[in-house]
């Protein structure tokens, strides 16, 4: 955790469902262009924390600030307009649209006004950018096919590519490696590093694949039972006895 105000500041966020404290006073900061990993066993509150930050659910208490602006409880639409993107734990593509249209759909709403888009070019001027992303994610051979007809791994890549289409300032990735062929995991990590370098956004990544997160994230937070158990450099967190116990038990 950085002590000074960062790009994203999560302060004492709590989310309770009755007596169950899903997130219990979590605080952390993410600097501009920083990649932060969030690990923890199943049910440790990682996704609830994400959903609290991203307006899918309203936290019981605490605050979330983006560049000093209080964004606590803002709707996903308002957050998207502020340059916050995300991926979900489960696949979330537009199955009836082609891969190329999925990518264009992911960014077109940030171009011009709603009435103006009615009179815009069919590709909203994003065709070239979509083709670049298709090339980057090696999806050219399926670009014209409906996304819903592709394999899980291909849809996962589309899902991630969509989050980066509008070049967001902050992206929260929820288990990007889940269901992805192990041979693609390294490729995915390289893609994220490249996007971080070219687009300059900050990433927060939830992941169970330790190798992936340790190589990708210079800063890692470990959550257990809704609380931050440990944080710091990946090697230090990985070696922390409390973290080992949380994952492996006594």
């Amino acid at each position: 955790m950085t002590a000074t105000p960062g790009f994203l500041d999560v302060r004492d966020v709590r989310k309770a469902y009755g007596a169950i404290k899903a997130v219990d006073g979590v605080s952390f900061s993410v600097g501009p262009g920083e990649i932060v990993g969030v690990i923890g066993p199943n049910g440790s509150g990682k996704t609830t924390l994400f959903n609290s930050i991203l307006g899918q659910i309203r936290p019981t208490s605490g605050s979330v600030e983006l560049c000093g602006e209080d964004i606590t409880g803002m709707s996903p639409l308002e957050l998207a307009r502020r340059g916050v993107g995300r991926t979900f734990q489960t696949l979330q593509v537009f199955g009836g649209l082609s891969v190329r249209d999925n990518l264009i759909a992911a960014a077109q709403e940030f171009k011009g006004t709603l009435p103006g888009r009615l009179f815009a070019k069919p590709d909203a001027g994003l065709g070239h950018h979509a083709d670049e992303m298709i090339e980057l994610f090696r999806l050219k051979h399926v670009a014209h096919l409906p996304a819903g007809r592709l394999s899980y791994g291909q849809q996962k890549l589309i899902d991630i590519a969509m989050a980066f289409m509008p070049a967001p300032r902050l992206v929260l990735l929820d288990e990007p490696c889940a269901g992805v062929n192990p041979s693609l995991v390294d490729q995915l990590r390289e893609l994220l590093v490249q996007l971080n370098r070219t687009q300059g956004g900050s990433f927060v990544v939830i992941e169970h694949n330790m190798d992936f997160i340790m190589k990708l994230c210079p800063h890692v937070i470990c959550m257990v039972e809704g609380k931050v158990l440990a944080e710091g450099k990946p090697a230090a967190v990985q070696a922390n006895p409390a973290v080992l116990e949380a994952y492996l038990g006594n």
Partner: protein
Amino acid sequence: MSAGLRRTVLLVAGLAALVAVAAFAKRSEVYLLTLTLVYLMATFGLNLTVGYAGQMSLGQAAFFGIGAYVAAIALKAGIPFLAVLPIAGIACFVVGLALGFPALRVQHHYLAFATLGFNVLVFLVMRNEEKLTGGTFGISSIPRPTILGVSFEGHLAYFYFTLAGLVALAAALWWLLRSPWGRAFAALRDNPIRAESLGVNITAYTLLAFAIGAACAGVGGVYYASLVEFIEPGPFHFSTSLMMLLAVIVGGSGRFFGPVVGTIVIILLPEVLRSSSIESLKFMQKWYLVFFGLAVVALMIWLPGGILSIADRFRKREAPR
């Protein structure tokens, strides 16, 4: 020949065939064809709401009726047909916006019943507000248009006039669906939560989907009023909404020409079978509803994507992995 060009050639050939067939058809057959075109305007709009934007609606006949009553009252008051069209379209657009609000809270069968309730309410207004609508006696002597001195009073002239209107409406919808709006509607249909996280204003697009679909039905209602020259609440009962929805689904929901096929099958074909003078089809006059019902059941079981999904069934092209 590219796929796009092939489609254009087919479309032009189909329209030319329709023009030619109408020229040699009997008066009753031309009436039936015109009626099909009029219903097609409403089902094109419903396809946008249901097929492209994924919002269930069982209230399309109400908008069809609102358009028809606005036209009947306005045309009888001497307002020109070309002015009545936008008036009815805008009236239905505004009411459609209002009907879109329940869709922001409920979906699927809940939304279906909310829109059905709306249709029942509109039907009751048409039946009971006698001063405005004529109640069960309806409104008669609705004039057909005369534009720039050209009369469309005759049955064939009115058919061509309606066909031109339908082509203009379809072209406008084609253009809209190819614009970024069309993609946003599809995103709303496929995954509204993801769409919102990508900046798609799902409130605005949901309301627009209802409003535009309603406006199309309103325009269809204007042509309908002039076609039948007498309107009463019966044709705007919610059973007509069910029939329109069936036409969209049978043809191929979310496919541009789905409503064309669906409206032919659901509206034109039963009438043709019922009134057929061909000897071998005579038995259909008694049995057509039975065959029609069985065909719809079979279609929904084996082709839930509608008749136009047959091509996809046979294509079975495996996506590269």
